[in-house]
């Protein structure tokens, strides 16, 4: 499982950031980046299949657990290698490593529930279905509305 982003829907309201901070004791794991004046993109952990943060983690604190990149806080030495290794800049080190835990224990990640615009989802099929529908409409209407 991972959180997928529909950038056509993101409205840059930063609700995901505030909600993530709220449930993680003030330290959030998602950042909304504004691209010029015309788009905003929430950037968060992809739970990569071959996670470079986990590969870099010599203590085994960061490791794969099924499809998620899990974190065992007791094993973390705070060395910061994971932060250097992450190609998306979504693992931080502040005494220990901090990254998206998919809100373990909740029905779904907080950012997904709270997103006012339904831009975040754990349902990849929903996202790809939306994209295909858009493409189909564009073909059918020649791009005209």
């Amino acid at each position: 499982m991972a959180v997928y982003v529909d950038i056509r829907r993101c409205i840059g309201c930063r609700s995901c950031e505030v909600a993530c901070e709220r449930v993680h004791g003030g330290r959030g794991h998602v950042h909304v980046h504004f691209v010029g004046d015309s788009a905003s993109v929430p950037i968060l952990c992809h739970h990569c299949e071959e996670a470079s943060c986990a590969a870099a983690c010599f203590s085994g604190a960061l490791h794969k657990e099924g499809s998620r990149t899990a974190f065992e806080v007791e094993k973390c030495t705070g060395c910061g290698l994971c932060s250097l290794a992450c190609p998306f800049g979504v693992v931080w080190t502040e005494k220990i490593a901090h990254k998206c835990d998919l809100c373990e224990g909740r029905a779904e990640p907080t950012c997904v529930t709270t997103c006012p615009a339904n831009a975040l989802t754990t349902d990849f099929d929903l996202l790809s279905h939306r994209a295909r529908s858009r493409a189909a409409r564009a073909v059918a209407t020649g791009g005209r509305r």
Partner: protein
Amino acid sequence: MTKVLVPTVCPYCGAGCGFFVSVERGKAVGMEYMPGHPVSEGALCSKGNAALEFLRHQDRLTTPLRRRGEGFVRISWEEALGLIARGLGDVIRRNGPGGVAFLASSKCTNEENYLLQKLARLLGTPHVDNCARLCHAPSVVGLNRTLGAAGMTNPIPDIGSSKCIFIIGSNLAENHPVIARWVHRAHEDGAVVIVADPRETPTTWMADLFLQLTPGTDVALLSGMAHVIIAEGLIDGDYIARNTRGFEALRESVRSSSPERISEITGVPPDDIVRAARAYASSPASSILYSMGITQHSTGTDNVQAISNLALITGHLGRPGTGVMPLRGQNNVQGACDMGALAEFYPGYGRSDDPETIRRFSSAWGVPALPKGPGLTATEMICAAASGDIRAMYILGEDPANSDPCSQKVHQALEDLDLLVVQDIFMTATARLADVVLPGAVWAEKEGSFTNTERRVQWSSKAVDPPGEALSDLEIIAAVGRSLGIDLGSPDAASVLAEINRTVPQYAGITRERLGEGGLIWPCPDPHHPGTPILHSAGFKLADGRASIVPVRYRPAAEGPGREYPLLLTTGRVAVHHNAGSMTRRSPSLLRREPDLFVEINPADAFPLRIAGGDPVLVETPRGGAEALARLTDRVKRGVVFMPFHFPGTNRLTSEATDPEARIPEFKVSACRIVRRD
């Protein structure tokens, strides 16, 4: 110890999202989402997520205070009520009850607003109003006149079934974020989305067609669209014949509004005006969403009427997916108006100058006489305070010293009063000018009903006690009444709602027992009525059941750019702040994201002024100056600058010009200049 989840209604915008406050040992320890909520479906914006931050804030007022010199001292409730009774009594003896004015609050419950306007009118003053005056007063006037009802015609989820959504003067993606999910839903179902706004915003990102008009030219744009719709035969002739009056006058008034001519006024390309008109008129179900970009103008009422006209000539009313949708900015601005906290209306929109209304309420409240209106509006009260006609004011949960235009004058006027009582949760700029400050409760510290922008009445429960000696606002109003010898009955929200059921016909069937999940949408005339999500599906509540098409003519804004003040300043909101900011600027997770007052300026305007991004600049208008950080961006056109109004400063600049009917100030257009601060 177990956690209890208490259902509440979000204290911020008018969308009316619900969430649970989780309570442990009498403390609010967290919040949980409400997936079953009909509008938000569990979602919450950044402000909603941060709501507990201001609830628990150390700045909360915890005891009554009285002014001593420049500061305040704590006093008992008994002393506070005595001071208020003596102060108000003195003013009433010297100046008559008309020397006292009350401001009710669009942040407080229906019951609190009802009781406050009742107190004002039982005291004998017609002067009671609320800050709807500063946001949707033109909707109340314009929609009542054209459609016979002032509210959103269709519920929010209904936007999802629209086939053309025309958003004008609303940045809903930042100000009502959950509404964006319904716009997206319609869009992905093939709807066309058109956005008209002077700025590029996250709302315009959703648009298929973006009309970037010059601030203050909305009537021209809407007339141009009406011209195209009529000229191309896209009107719904049957609908017009059956349901409206006045079409011929409109046809005459827009004859000369050709797209080319309108393009010169608005700056919108003629082809785009034609495209927008065709899309809106020819879709099977079109809706218009608007907000303060339409209302906060000296032509606000005309703007609203021009919107009604478009919907009426195309028949886009009374069906799912259609409608005219004023998006209200605060959680209970609709309710405060419904409850008669307005200068020209008693509860339920009975005109305050109508003898029948006065008779009905005199008999309901068991008094021989009640004051005839219209009273002074929120903006007129301040002028009357400055001129000495109003000598005492009672302000509930509003901050005119920050939120009214030309704030230096407001400060002076409030300072000069014989008695200013402010009932609030924080020491706001207005409270700092008060003689007596009373500590009230926030949304989760009391119970009562709130009416959101779609006329949905929802019950919000009490989760925790107010801090210190603070009391629920209903208890405070009742106690103030008692100290003045006026019995307002039991200060219990359910009992007050029962009285509202008897006196406000639209709320007659909205009883406490029926307000479960999802609430009820008024009008709901009897206890078995299911509520009325869609208005005007069977004619209009006007003479002979017809709506009025009212011709309007474009008038320029009161101020235009000139040699001394060459730029147009427009104001608005950002996603992480709310109104005058007394709540959001005290919420660390929001303030951190937008800590300073800024001004958006086009790089082409900034370059000759030697202004770079991040520079501190001084923005000046004939009223005064404010410091802000420059933000260089193409979001605004050349010649237009934008400032949010969440920080003290912006409203030192804004214009005092008001709409002649609705008396709303023209916050959206002021001529200004910008200079580097060094």
